[in-house]
């Protein structure tokens, strides 16, 4: 306890609260690393939220629900991939359309699920480990999705950094013409990266509707997808920094609510503003470090590729 705030509860809450944006941001990072800017994260998240909720309540299995959420997100991302990679539509406009489409379609599918209670996602039981003071509740008191999300971040980092597949993905994102000349299938790589991004966004959405809230409400992502996009920029396209960014963005929200509940009069607006301010500062510092502009962004980000070019 520090000043009436239970730090242990705060950290445990923060880990659970940041899971949706952590997943969505990690997925978006992979998509952007392959050179595609998908602004439809919000739409994919909410489709994951409604898809996951529908399947979980129908089957009574949260695991199937999460799978369905991932599939729903990936399907929407595939639609985006078809439009932007095959029909070469503008990525920004298509991404925005995807968000609006996802919000509308999810509201339609979600009719009838309002007020329904989803099956409970149980917390993992680590036996005596959960009783360790401090570390117990922080590290061993969560449901499996929290751990899965951390494993996914680690795996994404490792694959991007150490494997041939990661190298190809990054090559496609940096210079798709060169990658194409080397014989890599740029469009196929981007399809896969987008689908992965969509699946993670859908998983994040399903976590929102199945664990964090837990219920289905129209428009329930309420901007989480946009925060995920901000986190990718904040993280300067590095998976390990996505983790820091997600914990910071969600942590500040959790912290300010707990401070209020503990009776502190705090300037909420200043705290809410802080992550965005820090994002701007990070961008300024990055571009100051790299004299020739922000080198952190994949060079081909947002550019359409066609083999004829």
């Amino acid at each position, binding site marked *: 306890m520090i000043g009436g705030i239970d730090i242990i509860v705060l950290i445990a*809450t923060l880990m659970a609260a940041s899971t949706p944006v952590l997943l969505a941001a990690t997925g978006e990072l992979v998509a952007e690393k392959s050179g595609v800017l998908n602004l439809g994260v919000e739409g994919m998240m909410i489709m994951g939220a409604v898809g996951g909720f529908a399947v979980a309540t129908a089957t009574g299995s949260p695991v199937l629900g999460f799978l369905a959420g991932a599939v729903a997100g990936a399907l929407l991302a595939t639609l985006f991939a078809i439009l932007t990679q095959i029909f070469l539509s503008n990525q920004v406009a298509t991404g925005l359309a995807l968000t609006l489409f996802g919000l*509308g379609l999810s509201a339609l599918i979600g009719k009838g699920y309002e007020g*329904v209670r989803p099956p409970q996602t149980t917390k993992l039981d680590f036996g005596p480990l959960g009783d360790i003071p401090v570390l117990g509740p922080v590290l061993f008191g969560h449901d499996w999705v929290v751990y899965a999300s951390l494993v996914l971040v680690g795996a994404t980092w490792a694959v991007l950094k150490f494997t041939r597949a990661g190298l190809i993905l990054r090559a496609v994102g940096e210079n798709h013409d060169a990658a194409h000349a080397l014989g890599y299938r740029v469009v196929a790589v981007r399809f896969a990266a987008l689908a992965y991004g969509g699946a993670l966004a859908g998983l994040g959405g399903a976590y929102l509707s199945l664990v*964090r809230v*837990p219920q289905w409400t*129209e*428009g329930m992502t309420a*901007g989480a997808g946009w925060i995920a996009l901000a986190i990718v920029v904040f993280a300067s396209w590095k998976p390990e920094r996505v983790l820091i960014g997600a914990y910071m963005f969600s942590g500040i929200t959790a912290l300010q609510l707990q401070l209020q509940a503990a*009776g502190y*009069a705090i300037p909420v607006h200043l705290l809410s503003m802080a992550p965005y301010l820090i994002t701007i500062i990070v961008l300024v510092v990055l571009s100051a470090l790299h004299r020739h502009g922000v080198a952190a962004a994949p060079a081909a980000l947002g550019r359409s590729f066609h083999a004829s070019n």
Partner: protein
Amino acid sequence: MNRRSFLATTAIAALATAAGLPALAADPLKVGFIYVGPVGDMGWSYQHDQGRRAIEAEYGDKVVTTFMESVPEGPDAERALTQLALEGNTLIFATSFGYMDAVMNVAAKFPNVKFEHATGYKSAENVATYDAKFFQGRAIQGTIGGRMTKSNKIGYIGSFPIPEVVQGINAAYIHAKKVNPDVEMKVVWAYTWFDPAKEADAAAALIAEGVDVIMQHTDSTAPQAKAQEAGNVITFGQASDMSAFAPMPRVSSTIDNWAPYYVKRVGAMLDGSWKSEATWGGIDTGMVEIGEISSAVPEEVKAEALALKDKIASGEYHPFTGPLHKQDGSAWLADGVQAEDGELAGMNFFVEGITSELPK
């Protein structure tokens, strides 16, 4: 779809016009609505939409209604209102406090369009205001909460520190304190009307602080779901009955019933008698309804709450009756004096005993 839903009826009407079909009767009255959240929030915006449906049911093809949902408070509201006015709506309901300045600006540009603004305090020749005395419902919730709390801690999820919300917190606290002198009120401001994840987090933070009664002045049912998960926490339906969560955690509710008011105002438009006025309805006029008190509430507490409701409805009792002091200890209402409506409409202070500070 979500942000700009238009009813199929609007589309059909537009088609009919485009096809050059002569209007058989007089042109229908076009009525527009903007909502701050989605229609499916099952709370505030849902209730307003029930009112809109009541208009359609009452007047049939004499009216055409249109709505826009999830319109953010701020500049975008002005755009949405302008769009509705340009589309030929002659009566427009703006259903959130934060639309106030947007309504005033747009109303000045369209003197022939009538506007109705919910919960605000600015009016004009063509801008009427309407509000419900939610604090009457809060007094009943405070009584039930004060009786039922075991930890003596009541949590309150506020949206924005505006008079409408402050009245509710004060009324709930005064009446909880009346039946349980040890009661303590913890207030968390979410600074949003609708964000299920944040509302759930706010509820979780309050529960972590030992609260076992949660009242909300935000629009989604997320705090109800969070309380249900906790098991031993009671809540109250907000704006809508939220009966999906009865009997536990939702033990009662305050229901905003806008339908009679909307039907009356549209009727006034149709017969030409509409004029700008300020309406503030309560339990007596049916604008505020108290949802069924569930079986989780002991019989004697239920009887006490219902007795209070009857006294408020008959006008025998006013939830803000002196002696009452402000939070800083200064006198507010002398013994037996009732607060006046105008004073309540601008309420910007907590009453004595609430320890949280009211953000400025």
